[in-house]
């Protein structure tokens, strides 16, 4: 915005002095006009209802309800990361949910274009709410694997764990100790890392989760959310 102002000023000065490269100025103003058009609201219209119905496991009515809520909060049709963080933080008033929201955003933004459109949103929800256990675990693995290289390292897990603990905030009982996330990560790795090579692969993860009754049961917890 500053640069376009400067360009405008130079153009005005040129106007004062007659016959001094007026053509160049017009080309520059052309660029600034295009820039401004880009900056105006990005609009996105989702694919048709039938296509979404085919791609996800939601019924038509459910998609309608979802879209209405989505569009209400994001009239432009896409969610960018800041809005996403805002929305998610409202559910956790006591803590700081922005780090976890960042990871969540990356998990939903499957094509990594910096914004979550309605299709991304609804695909993610379809997996989480109507998918098989395998698919859900796959999604969770994808969430933990921050750099999407197929392995969960201890550092990645520590980041995720710290983000989760951040959401609790500081007013908790018992008071959060500094090494609690780290300890939690250790426990996690003890459970999941079968060959003790310091990383958790997708197969180790899925195997281990399928053998854990608690995890299996909790995966079914949110079946009836919509």
């Amino acid at each position: 915005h500053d640069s376009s102002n400067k360009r405008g000023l130079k153009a005005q000065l040129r106007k004062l002095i007659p016959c001094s490269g007026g053509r160049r100025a017009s080309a520059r103003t052309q660029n600034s006009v295009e820039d401004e058009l880009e900056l105006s609201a990005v609009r996105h219209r989702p694919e048709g209802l039938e296509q979404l119905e085919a791609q996800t496991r939601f019924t038509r009515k459910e998609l309608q309800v979802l879209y209405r809520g989505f569009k209400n909060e994001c009239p432009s049709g896409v969610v960018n990361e800041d809005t996403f963080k805002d929305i998610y933080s409202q559910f956790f008033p006591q803590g700081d949910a922005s780090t976890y929201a960042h990871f969540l955003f990356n998990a939903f933004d499957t094509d990594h274009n910096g914004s979550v459109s309605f299709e991304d949103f609804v695909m993610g929800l379809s997996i989480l709410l109507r998918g098989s256990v395998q698919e859900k675990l796959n999604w969770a693995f994808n969430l933990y694997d921050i750099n999407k290289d197929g392995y969960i390292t201890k550092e990645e897990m520590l980041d995720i764990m710290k983000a989760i603990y951040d959401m609790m905030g500081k007013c908790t009982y018992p008071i959060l100790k500094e090494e609690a996330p780290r300890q939690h990560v250790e426990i996690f790795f003890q459970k999941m890392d079968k060959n003790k090579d310091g990383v958790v692969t997708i197969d180790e993860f899925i195997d281990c989760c399928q053998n854990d009754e608690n995890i299996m049961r909790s995966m079914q917890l949110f079946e009836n959310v919509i």
Partner: protein
Amino acid sequence: MAAGVAAWLPFARAAAIGWMPVANLPMPVAPTEKNKRQDELIVLNVSGRRFQTWRNTLDRYPDTLLGSSEKEFFYDEETKEYFFDRDPDVFRSILNFYRTGKLHYPRYECISSYDEELAFFGIIPEIIGDCCYEEYKDRKRENAERLMDDQEDNKDSKLPNMTFRETMWRAFENPHTSTMALVFYYVTGFFIAVSVITNVVETVPCGSSPNQKDVPCGERYTVAFFCMDTACVMIFTVEYLLRLFAAPSRYRFMRSVMSIIDVVAILPYYIGLVMTNNEDVSGAFVTLRVFRVFRIFKFSRHSQGLRILGYTLKSCASELGFLLFSLTMAIIIFATVMFYAEKGSTSSKFTSIPASFWYTIVTMTTLGYGDMVPKTIAGKIFGSICSLSGVLVIALPVPVIVSNFSRIYHQNQRADKRRAQKKARLARIRISKTGTSNAFLHSKRNGLLNEALDLTGSTEDERHHNKTTSLLESQHHHLLHCLEKTTTPSQHPPSFPLPQNHEFVDEHLYEQNCLEGALQNYTSRSPSLSSSGGLTGTCCSRRSRRKSAHLPNSAMSPGPPHGLQELSAVHIHRSDRPPLSTSRSSLNLMPDEAMRLNCKSGQITTAIISIPTPPGTTPEGDGHGPPSPSVQTTAGSSVVKVSAL
């Protein structure tokens, strides 16, 4: 929670699947929707104009008329719509509030009719959005002032049981309340005028005796003027003393501007009385008489306009000061220049820079007395520059400055308003946040209490008022509960009693825990019963003073200071056992506790506990914490007491 994001709650809950593989404990059960309705359109007929919206939209704010079951009173069976006999124009804004979450105030609406509509539909005006809030507040203030003015006009009737002193003060402040006051008002006004005129006439030279030159009247008729002066000062002194006596706050009265003027007006006379007619001090004495002119300011009690002028000057003081400062700069510059320009010429009147000040001021204000004029050419050039710039410096900016000041003044007020609004807004956000978390903690206690009461076989109606939270809230609380479980470390092997959960607590308990940690320097809490009982001996001492009446027999807990009483404690007495106190934090222990107690053939009779709905669920943002529930105990030795912070 805002309206729009209520629609995103399903998403947040779905995303919670990301915590599941990390958690070590089983998750709590999700609340189920008892009667899941398909979303339907409802028709709101407001004085003939039909509005339609989804039912879910209205359900976003369950504590307003449209969001709660109160609208059922307006349901019309034949036409299957809700009929409201209210203003449809204002209703548009109200319905938009449900849709967008932001309440706007339309500028063309009358403020009192808008307020009435908001009150009817149960919406508090504090949630008006920032875009319209200032306008709303301004109009409301104007309206309040108008009402106050009206009220003041009606305040003629004398209130009963007013003391003599209060009557007198009222008489002084509002002269038209009684005839006596009016008489007094006019008499003092008359004497002020007389005093001022006397001062003026004193100096007029009146008729000369043939052998002397003109003498001022004051010296000719000394006695007469002295008597007049004395009479006026008597009146003023009496008035001042009466006001001092009648004032409700003497100290404040003595500090007020009017009383200072009064004192300054009468002081010279008394000082003149005590001072002898000594030559040395007579000069100072004469100077003091100047202060008698201050009596004219006493008129400001009689004139509203003077008071407003004084107030305006006071409020524009900073702007006037700036004007004065820039003028001073210009004067100094030009005086210096003129002095050095005229230094060369002979018999120049510009003897020093301060002497040139007079020339500069007279020239810049375009007065031009002509008593000091430059003689050198350079002096004339600079003199003309001075007079030209004088026009610019003084004449031109004055209207600009005046309008600027008015704009800056209003802007300043708006900045203050915005700052106050921001504080209020942050406070509201904070309150709603604490409200949400308090609601969560409260419902958790209710939930666990429910389990306890379940195990003791309570009756239905003792549990029904715990189910007042809406489905949305219970889902949100379930989400927070899952988060708590996720971040709880598990113990190997799982010991009994159950491990402590990682829980949300409110700020007071958190601070108390911090304090306790610092005091006792302990590192881990063993989840045994006795020490956990001791843990919650530390509750906020502030609250304990207020609520000590509720807990006459709180158990003494070891370790933490005994001065603090247990506040949030659940006591379960049994007739054949000493009182057993359980801490709030170890309410998780309660099911097992209760089970164990049950096994040991104890009788636990339950009390009727009424827990009102926590205020955090309403967007009112009262700022008070959850109220302390009233506790009624059944007769007998068994007592269940529940108190909440």
